[in-house]
């Protein structure tokens, strides 16, 4: 999940908010939350469609982590919240260090067979993974009698995903769309 705060504040809007009853303020925030939720959803879909670099590089199917992400909007009289439920989305706000949750090392897929699949899963499906002595990767042999092996996962104690601010709409877009939703609410008599 991702927590981020965008503050929309203009003298006009602040004045209106001050005059609003808590119920009206909650309605206004609901409109803003809905608008921002749709803005984020549209952005994620468009972004994800053009960014399946890892999957494409490996010749694997995209996992759909971003394009299928659930985006929830909620609000009350104190503000509007949009929640993006996608692993790794936090890198939109800055570099994201990842450490192993289970196991001793992160397993970073470098072969199509490993993309979207865990070590345990591959082993349970008969892929005989092994770690060559002194090496920091896991490999397997397609032909057990062959001397050649395929590197499947790199093993890392941690890794850092680079900051990808473009994962989410920029703050100016969010603020403008929130203001537009507020303006519409007021114009339509929601004040």
């Amino acid at each position: 999940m991702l927590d981020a705060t965008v503050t929309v504040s203009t003298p006009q809007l602040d004045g209106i908010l001050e005059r609003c009853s808590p119920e009206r303020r909650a309605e206004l925030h609901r409109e803003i939350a809905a608008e921002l939720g749709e803005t984020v959803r549209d952005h994620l879909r468009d972004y994800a469609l053009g960014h399946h670099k890892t999957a494409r590089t490996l010749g694997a199917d995209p996992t759909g982590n971003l394009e299928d992400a659930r985006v929830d909007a909620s609000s009350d009289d104190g503000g509007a919240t949009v929640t993006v439920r996608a692993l790794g989305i936090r890198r939109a706000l800055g570099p994201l260090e990842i450490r192993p949750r289970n196991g001793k090392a992160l397993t970073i897929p470098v072969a199509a067979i490993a993309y979207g699949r865990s070590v345990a899963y591959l082993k349970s499906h008969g892929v005989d993974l092994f770690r060559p002595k002194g090496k920091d990767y896991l490999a397997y042999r397609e032909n057990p009698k062959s001397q050649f092996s395929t590197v499947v996962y790199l093993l890392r104690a941690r890794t850092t995903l680079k900051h990808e601010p473009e994962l989410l709409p920029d703050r100016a877009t969010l603020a403008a769309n929130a203001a537009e939703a507020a303006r519409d609410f007021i114009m339509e008599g929601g004040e």
Partner: protein
Amino acid sequence: MTKKELEEKLHEIARAGALAVARHLAPELRPIVEAYNAGEMNLAEVRERAAEVFAASEAKIDFVVKTQRRMAQSLGQLAAQTPGQLRRYPAWRLVRGGTRKVPRDDWDLRWAAAGSATGWQGACTDDYVALKDSPIWAALGDGAGGYRDAIGNPFPPFAFGSGMTWQRVSRDEAESLGLVGEGGDA
């Protein structure tokens, strides 16, 4: 039994089976799907955990959890509809929201069949755009035209494994498409 009949029979089995799983999710899969939908588990963990408790192929597990996730995504979108959103964005466009190795190429036929079945109420004939309350969405989900892979929901995904989803359409565009009167109600 001809190959066509066999194909239809297999499709029926797949559809009935997937429907049963997707709509009446196996209890052992429920916490896994919930964690996946909540963004607490990645697909690799989902496949690993699901394979431990659910005897099915990877394709079927993917099929179930991804369908559930897309349905949850659409339900979130529906739940976020407000008077303001309906006023400013009265329509949806059916667009590709997920990449597929082999995308369906029959959406024009599906759209035409669903439109014909509903008299094109609130729907464009030459663009995949319709008002949010158009019956065309339910017809798409019901597989109007005889599409047996339809899921039965009036929201995306309309067919099993489909990557098509909704994109909101502004009032200005809906007006230019003739779906709403200028300045009037949808």
